[in-house]
């Protein structure tokens, strides 16, 4: 499990989405604890050498989704609690993520069982570290 946030600008996945998904993964695995501070937009942009607007976009989406919380004058933190979503919102978010993953698996020519197996493995990997199963 990666404990660092890395981006690959050459990937077809937009950089803001790589950051968004990378931070979600770090939170899900417990590598980033609830309530822990995350780097400022400027620090992270400088560290990854990418446009700060791209980092800001990812942070904004994560804040809107309740994964991150901004405390005025203090900075940005991982939200203290898992985002409170209505069941409809959760279903929609899961479906969007699933569609992206299914397209990826299809374009790689993976079989359905193989693709589902990878989800199970990833779930177990993350769930173990995040204290859920």
């Amino acid at each position: 499990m990666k404990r660092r946030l890395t981006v690959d600008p050459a990937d077809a996945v937009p950089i803001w989405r790589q950051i968004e998904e990378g931070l979600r993964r770090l939170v899900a695995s417990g590598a980033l604890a609830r309530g822990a501070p995350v780097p400022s937009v400027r620090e992270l942009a400088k560290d990854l050498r990418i446009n700060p607007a791209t980092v800001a976009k990812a942070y904004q989406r994560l804040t809107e989704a309740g994964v991150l919380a901004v405390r005025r004058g203090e900075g940005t933190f991982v939200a203290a609690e898992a985002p409170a979503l209505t069941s409809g919102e959760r279903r929609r978010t899961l479906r969007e993520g699933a569609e992206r993953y299914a397209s990826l698996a299809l374009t790689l020519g993976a079989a359905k069982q193989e693709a589902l197996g990878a989800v199970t493995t990833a779930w177990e990997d993350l769930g173990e570290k995040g204290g859920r199963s």
Partner: protein
Amino acid sequence: MSSHDGQKALCLDHVTVRYGKATAAEAVSFSVPRGSVYALLGRNGAGKSSLIRCLLGQRKPQEGEVTIFGEDPWSNRARLMARLGVVPEEPDAPPDMTARQIAAFCSRLYPSWDGNGVETRLRRFAVPGDVPFGRLSKGQKGQLALALALGGLPELLVLDDPTLGLDVVARKALFEELVEELAERGTTVLLTSHDLGGVEAMADRVGILKEGRLLVDEPLDDLKARFRRVSFGQSDATVHGSETMKALDPLALKQAAWGTEAVVSGFSEEAFARFAAAPGVSDAEASPLSLEEIFIALCGEEGGRP
């Protein structure tokens, strides 16, 4: 003029530049919204420098209109240039003047001047303040030019191949400086560069020039989303030129030892799924292309249409 011009830092509208009978740029139109980073790409001789000269008011295009902050740089050059920071491809200054003397000279040309910022950046870049310009390395000249360009607190920063001749360490410092400037002031940037990895991390919009014409002008995310390399095996030779192949609409096809590779510029999951399931096609895979690979597909020797 459209009502959007207020949000545009610069705008080119059907700009044509000719040198005698040779056309350097033909009917080029694009605009750069305030606060964005636009990368103008092209091979040597594609017309980038001619367009930059028009933008900087050093040349009047034969046809079309150039505006910076809504004004014509050809007739308002001095006033507009005070709002711009420029790092030219080949920075030039009197060879006997030191960095510090050049900075002092420049400070008088701009209405607001961040002298401390210039000093700090020169220290960070390790450019000596007391060595004559003529004795600085190519990289140091570029770094001095960047420090001076930022010293005038520009609204628009024009970087003409700023990484040319820089080693990896200097290139890293340059991009960090750019990130800092973007985070601090939200400066609009127009950038030309052959360092496509750097562009890929920094630009939010790209234009690709080929032989004077603008082939691409769109958000980088969109450009990368629509390009894929599709590789596949074929059990019979009829796939080529077939309806199946046409539906994929490849830009270029290449036979490799392991099968066929096609670069596709209008990728969609649906069209790909149909192609992969078509008779005669096996093991079809779609993989993303980096900006460099997209650039080569469009501008390389056997490059095709956008």
